[in-house]
């Protein structure tokens, strides 16, 4: 009787706790879809030869489908909104638990952030990771003042307040959510041209912070140790402004450490980016048309170091499915843009 009491009561309590936790966690099925990006990776059935790391400049600006269709490159974008460099680092550590890519492409825009920025973005980048040391390290490195690490272990402690905001989504997607990305890529088919290209506002200091460099060093070392080729990239988004001084620092760093650094802003015309048609928000992010052009461009560079997997039936079947979804989503969004002049479908 006593044994039953000791076992049953905590078990019931745990069921209620985790049940509540699941209910109150944000589902990211309307409004902010980006919260799903990190966790979607863990359902992948195949491995990837290229992993992209970074913020919106990777998950909006590069189409893995183009890489597959034209070069047979199996890739995944492990991006998240305003992903900070230490988050990228620990995300790679975490990824290496499952697979070993040949190439890692890191978007260097996040070098500008030497310190944690916003709790909300931390959540979008970290919550989706399974509970490992890497997750906790990432949370520790990212935590703002007053943030509790315990709430990364038990998200209920963070999201309990959502009892007020519970909506149909929370029940509808209780057991599983829809997907928001194709291989980590978030599609946008609408167009909003760039109208002005402003000068960057003057900064007091253009030197990237010590902390940023610390993690860039760690990233470089990790890739070297594992025999992974690391490519630093600045994708061709016009905002936030990419300063010449920043560019020079990255070029220097790549020189010193023997890495490839590609500044796509300078290469925009070579890549074929047309800022009238290839961005959906006047230059902040590329739309799918721009992302596909980036796919072509990067495919050319990556093809040397990455095998073509198109003949491998396992890869082919998974990727064909992705291509189908991609095509359907693209067609749907294009139709919606035509009919309603806005996109309604972001998930599948």
């Amino acid at each position: 009787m006593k044994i039953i009491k000791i076992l049953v009561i905590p078990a019931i309590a745990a069921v209620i706790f985790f049940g509540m936790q699941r209910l109150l966690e944000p589902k990211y099925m309307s409004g902010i879809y980006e919260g799903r990006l990190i966790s979607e990776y863990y359902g992948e059935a195949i491995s990837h030869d290229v992993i992209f790391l970074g913020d919106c400049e990777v998950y909006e600006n590069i189409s893995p489908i183009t890489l597959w269709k034209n070069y047979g490159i199996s890739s995944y974008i492990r991006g998240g909104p305003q992903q900070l460099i230490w988050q990228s680092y620990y995300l790679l550590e975490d990824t290496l638990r499952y697979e070993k890519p040949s190439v890692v492409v890191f978007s260097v825009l996040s070098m500008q952030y030497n310190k944690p920025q916003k709790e909300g973005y931390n959540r979008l980048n970290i919550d989706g990771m399974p509970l490992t040391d890497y997750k906790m390290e990432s949370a520790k490195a990212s935590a703002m003042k007053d943030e509790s690490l315990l709430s990364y272990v038990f998200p209920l402690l963070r999201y309990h307040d959502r009892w007020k905001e519970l909506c149909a989504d929370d029940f509808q997607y209780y057991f599983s959510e829809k997907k928001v990305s194709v291989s980590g890529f978030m599609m946008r088919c609408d167009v909003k041209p760039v109208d002005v290209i402003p000068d960057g506002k003057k900064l007091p200091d253009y030197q990237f912070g010590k902390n940023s460099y610390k993690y860039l060093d760690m990233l470089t070392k990790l890739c070297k140790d594992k025999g992974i080729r690391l490519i630093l990239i600045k994708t061709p988004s016009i905002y936030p402004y990419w300063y010449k001084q920043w560019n020079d620092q990255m070029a220097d760093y790549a020189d010193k450490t023997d890495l490839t650094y590609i500044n796509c802003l300078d290469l925009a015309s070579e890549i074929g980016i047309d800022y009238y048609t290839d961005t959906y928000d006047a230059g902040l992010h590329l739309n799918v048309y721009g992302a596909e052009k980036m796919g072509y461009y990067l495919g050319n560079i990556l093809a040397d170091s990455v095998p073509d997997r198109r003949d491998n039936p396992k890869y082919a079947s998974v990727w064909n499915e992705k291509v189908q979804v991609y095509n359907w989503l693209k067609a749907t969004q294009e139709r919606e843009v035509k009919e309603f002049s806005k996109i309604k479908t972001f998930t599948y």
Partner: protein
Amino acid sequence: MYFTSANFLLFFLCTFVGYYTVFRRVQWQFLLMASLVFYAFSGWSNLIYICVTICSTWFAGRQMTRLRIGQEQYLAGIPELSKKGRNTYKAVIKAKLKKWLVLCLLFNLAILAVVKYISFVISSINPLLSVINAQQITSINILLPLGISFYTFQALSYIIDVYRGLESESSLFKFGLFVSFFPQLIQGPISRFDDLKETLYSQHKFDSEEFQAGLARVMWGFFKKLIVADRLITAVMALSDPNGGYGGVYVILNAFFYAITLYADFTGGIDITLGTARMLGVAVKENFSRPFYSVSIADYWRQWHITMGTWFKDYLFYPISASRPMLRLFKWSQKSFGGGFGKRISVYTSTMILWFVTGLWHGAEWHFIVWGLVNGIVIIISKELSPLYARFHKRFRIGDTNGYKAFQIFRTFWLMSFIRIFDVYGSVRLTIKMYLSVIFNFDWTRFITNGPSDLGLDIADYALIAIAVIVMVIAGFTHNNRHMEFTNVKPILRTVLIASMVFAVIIFGIYGFGYDSRQFIYNQF
């Protein structure tokens, strides 16, 4: 380290486990260590203050006991001494005892006065100095050591009790634990040594019943504090903003909200204190009965912050009233004004002194003093009116009906709520302005169009608070907060009740990122 912080939960868990396992043979010593660690979290320098108070009070206590033992031995040695001789000797010793008492009181009150009141005194004197064109005094800002008003008063009650005959504690460390016992260090209750010594120093075996009762009490405290107080305080702060323009009907709303907030916050904190102490096997005295069911202001003060009330009664009100000047005043006023009102003048004088000091104890600001005096005045007025009430009751005979009692409760609640808002507006001038706005500028239209919707809380918040308050009302209806320890219900039901409170607090509590879990309102005193 606040009770609602994750740090405290961790600290308590470690203390609790250590207390019943590794350190079970040295429990009180371990508690002392834990208390000092707890206090050190509020700043290392604060440890100096409390240690000075502990050492000085303990030493004075020992000296008094030494004198008493000396007296007994001396008198026992010469049984042939005449009664007069004995009395003379006793008087000499008594004078010496008094010297130690006064020394100890003055020393510790001086510390309190310097850290708590110096800047208030300076800022009150400076306007006077400017009138006579004298040099202004630069104000000194000393960080107020946490809970100093509480532990100082606890130490003082000890030394006065020793003077009155209590045996002093021989162990400095045991006495140190009495003053610094961490559950009650920050916000009371102000315990008596006599009440606490048995339970504090004895060995305690882990007892599942006690543990569950304590846990339930702690959760009830969290419930009130995190679900009600920390939520509703948002609205109180908005309403109390001098630039918010919330006058008229909103003052009434604020008085109501603040009554709920302060009750939930303060009694919740005390629940956590009593619950944690109980989990450690220590029985601390209750500090609240059911204040919002009281029928008069005097009744209210017998049920609210009881240990403070009895402290002031026993160590201030009675001694003043029984002092020679006051007895002389009694004789004089009786002669001058006759046997009715004249007899009461001295009592009223003591009452006003009592409330002046009570106000000052709460904080070194004028609005606290005015708040205290208003309490005293209202009590005196109700005393003066009592013959009138008596006549009224004789004629109408409704005094015992439930309806009349409900009226009394209602009246006392609102009277207290309106006196209490001195605290919330934080300035005498603003409070008076707000009182006047209730009379002259009621502002119905704004309230009817907006209601309480623009105070930072939404409808869900209000609904939640309403439900929680109903739970609080029901809990208080039959019993005081002790009821919420669930000692009289079936074990399985108790488990369910405790678990429900845990989940309610986890989900509906205000904590975590985006919220600064607010300090207990009473911490600052």
